[in-house]
């Protein structure tokens, strides 16, 4: 049983290598800018997944429409713009910020967000003295309702391994050099609590409305690996 599974996984990994190679070949073709239509050979993973999909549909275990609807939800409806709206509201409205920091679930639900992988939210505030950043060293835990599905780097070995032992080095790779006396606070998402960083409101945004503030907020600033940059005086957001 065990060896069967191992063989199966090895095949999957080998297939992955082949798929990567065929993707590279494809990319090269595109770089030549040829206008003619060329046959795209599906990768082994694409074939395996298609085969599983048709099996599950044939067996009545899933509906194709459900799969499409789920993909559409996470490609188009859930994403970091949700989190940006939460942050902008907190910057704009001190009472909302207070609620967000004490009862994040309630505050986030007020803006209509919530659900899978965001059932138990905690918001941590960056200040001149404390810089928060979020990781999941054990897998890929991430607050989906407010940030969407995580980027590849967040789920990758380099970020998962080094964030806890060398957070300042990791932040430097993102272009953020923090002053020596700032406390770096790393939140390792080891349970079902999901963290959202409330970034510092940048300078030069005093006159901006909530929509303009939301437009400034980046995904990475809400993971805590970057700051929201200051807006130059006289500049427009």
């Amino acid at each position, binding site marked *: 049983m065990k060896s069967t599974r191992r063989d199966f996984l090895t095949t999957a990994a080998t297939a992955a290598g082949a798929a990567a190679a065929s993707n590279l070949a494809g990319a090269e073709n595109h770089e030549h800018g040829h206008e003619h239509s060329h046959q795209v050979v599906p990768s082994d993973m694409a074939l395996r*997944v298609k085969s599983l999909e048709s099996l599950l549909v044939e067996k009545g275990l899933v509906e194709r429409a459900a799969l499409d609807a789920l993909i559409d939800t996470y490609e188009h409806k859930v994403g970091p713009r949700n989190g940006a709206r939460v942050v902008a509201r907190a910057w704009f409205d001190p009472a909302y910020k207070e609620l967000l920091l004490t009862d994040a679930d309630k505050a986030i639900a007020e803006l209509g967000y919530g659900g899978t992988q965001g059932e138990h939210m905690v918001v941590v505030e960056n200040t001149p003295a404390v810089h928060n950043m979020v990781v999941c060293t054990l897998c890929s835990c991430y607050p989906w309702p407010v940030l969407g599905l995580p980027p590849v780097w967040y789920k990758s070995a380099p970020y998962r391994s080094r964030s806890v032992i060398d957070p300042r080095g990791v932040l430097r790779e993102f272009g953020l050099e923090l002053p020596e006396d700032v406390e770096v606070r790393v939140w390792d998402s*080891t349970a079902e609590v999901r963290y959202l960083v409330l970034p510092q409101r940048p300078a030069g945004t005093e006159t901006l409305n909530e929509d303009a503030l939301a437009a400034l907020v980046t995904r990475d600033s809400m993971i805590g690996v970057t700051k929201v940059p200051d807006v130059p005086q006289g500049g427009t957001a």
Partner: protein
Amino acid sequence: MNGVHDMGGMQDMGPIQEEKNEPVFHHPWEGLVFAMYRATGAWRKWNLDAARYAREMIPPAEYLSMSYYEKWYAGLVDLLTARGLVTRAEIESGIPAKGSSKATPPLTVSQLLESVAKGTPAKRSVSVAPRFQSGQRVRARNINPVGHTRLPRYARGKLGTIDRDYGAFVFPDSNAHFLGENPQHVYAVRFAARELWGDQAKLQDTVYLSMWDNYLEPA
């Protein structure tokens, strides 16, 4: 399990590679794997902890070489076969076994989307008493279970302070193996970076972990 998935504190894994304008899914099959995992979850044949454990069981060399959704695919196939929704032969042929009856999904499309929008809380309103209070000094237990655990190696045996009590949650170490939810309190526990990593860490830096009662002992 002291597996390769428990990565906190490892070094030399290479630079962090950011991708500008990254798509949610890099290939249509990745979206399908994600969606199939969520949709088959509606059969309630497994739970989130069991799904994590299935991915942790991928042998280390493969775990490190597979992409994220390749791991999800491997984990999904493992869950589907181990929990009896499909057979290995069906996976290989892509065709239902002869004479097998056709099921009806437990949730309609709109019910499935509702369940995603509602979420699946792991918090339990049970009257189990917390063993620790905010501000209390604690030590993370030195345990090395071969099953699923959410207590990372880098924190085991280390001294920390209870920052806050999050309430009672399903205990993954038992739930992943279908041995019951065993709800107990989860705390944010603050560790000085120096306690974890020694003098190379900055004096004021900290790492916060979420830890179940069973992971902690009084210090």
